[in-house]
């Protein structure tokens, strides 16, 4: 089966600066792929290119067999922006129901998406009155509600407590088990171990595209955090002497 996402030679400039320098990567279907890298490394830009809202300089991005951003994909791709993009002056339920309607889903499915992110008890609350973590889960519910084939999540677990984070990751794997493809960005390395595959990005360049086990093996250490440090240093020999 073809890959869910195929990126070839992707170059993106933002604000007069080159943000992505020729990325080549693939994401297999029915898996949870982690997109990891430090803040400012280009994770969000790559995700924006995949959902088709980013102007790209050169290269191609193919999503579910068609060019990224093409109209049929709008029914098949769900996108969670990094900042919670829900209406603060609507309740959680009203937000979920609106995004459900856009995807042709009914109210019951909207309510289920709200329950799935653990917000059932806050469903009637205005999003503006929620805590930061609750707000980003409200936003997540709106990304999941259409049951898209590909779900692109930009830092979905920031600000969540450990129990909720474990719940959310279990939910992501349950979705992957039904054939959904998830691309999840994070700058927290302990989340990398929860992914089926990893894309490690640094300064707009891909420095690893493999399973967590293979990344550990390539670096020769068990700790993923340490493995990433070694890979980064290996990729930048001129800076290896720095702290």
């Amino acid at each position, binding site marked *: 089966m073809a890959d869910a996402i195929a990126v070839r030679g992707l170059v993106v400039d933002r604000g007069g600066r080159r943000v992505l320098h020729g990325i080549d990567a693939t994401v297999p279907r029915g898996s949870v792929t982690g997109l990891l890298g430090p803040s400012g490394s280009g994770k969000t830009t790559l995700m924006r290119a995949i959902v088709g809202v980013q102007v790209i300089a050169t290269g191609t991005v193919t999503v579910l067999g068609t060019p990224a951003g093409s109209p049929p994909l709008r029914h098949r791709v769900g996108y969670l*922006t990094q900042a919670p993009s829900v209406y603060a002056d609507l309740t959680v339920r009203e937000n979920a129901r609106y995004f459900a309607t856009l*995807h*042709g889903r009914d109210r019951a499915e909207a309510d289920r998406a709200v329950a799935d992110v653990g917000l059932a008890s806050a469903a009637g609350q205005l999003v503006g009155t929620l805590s930061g973590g609750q707000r980003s889960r409200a936003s997540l519910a709106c990304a999941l509600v259409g049951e898209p084939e590909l779900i692109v999540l930009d830092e979905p677990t920031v600000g969540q407590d450990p129990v909720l984070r474990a719940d959310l990751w279990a939910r992501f794997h349950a979705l992957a088990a039904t054939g959904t493809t998830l691309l999840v960005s994070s700058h927290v390395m302990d989340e990398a171990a929860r992914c089926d595959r990893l894309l490690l990005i640094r300064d707009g360049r891909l420095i690893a595209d493999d399973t967590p086990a293979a990344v550990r093996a390539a670096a020769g250490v068990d700790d993923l955090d340490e493995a990433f440090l070694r890979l980064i240093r290996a990729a930048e020999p001129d800076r290896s002497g720095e702290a």
Partner: protein
Amino acid sequence: MNPRILSATVARILRQLRHDKRTVALLVAVPTVLLTLVYYMYADQPAPPGQPSTFDRIALVMLGFFPFIIMFLVTSIAMLRERTTGTLERLLTTPLAKTDLLFGYGIAFGLAGAVQAGIASAVAYWVFGLETAGSSALVIMIAALNAVLAVALGLLCSAFARTEFQAVQFMPVVVAPQLLLCGLFVPRDEMAGWLQATSDVLPLSYAVEALQEVGAHAEPTGTMWRDVAIVAAAAVLALVLAAATLRRRSG
């Protein structure tokens, strides 16, 4: 456009407005307060012989102004909020068509403007004894059309505003010249040629002329219908231009 998505968008925008009780109260109360001011300003001014009283002349045009000014501002801010909070970017990755969003705003705030105009008109007619030769329903219809025009212009201008400060500045740029040149302060045919030419290309001039036609004639006139058609066409043109300037992809 998709009827299901369009109606859901209209409902969503109205629901947001409903949760903001203070804004609703201001939308309803402010025109009434301003009409009261105008009423007492001109209460002791004698009417020129054979002409409507100064209050009648000004109040009639003001009923068209309120929805125009308020809905322009409300739309500019609402659209800017969609941009800055990321909801616009997210919406554009969903099956929603750009016209669903833009016409959704046009319909939702057009309805809000119609309600505002209806309440302001009720106060003007029943409390302050506004007299027009034509029907009050035509006055409300023209005022509601002004609201739609203002929403369309607000959506178009919001494409050129990156910050709240810029969005608010479009209000004097877009609204003030139309107010000054619409014929309320100086009759349009008494203006210098170049001002008249400018006035001729500003849509609000036609809305005001249509209101004045309703004020002076018992039956709707051909001029009034022509003016209404011009204002409606200007609103549709602005919405189409707004759709053309709304990009799914950005840098």
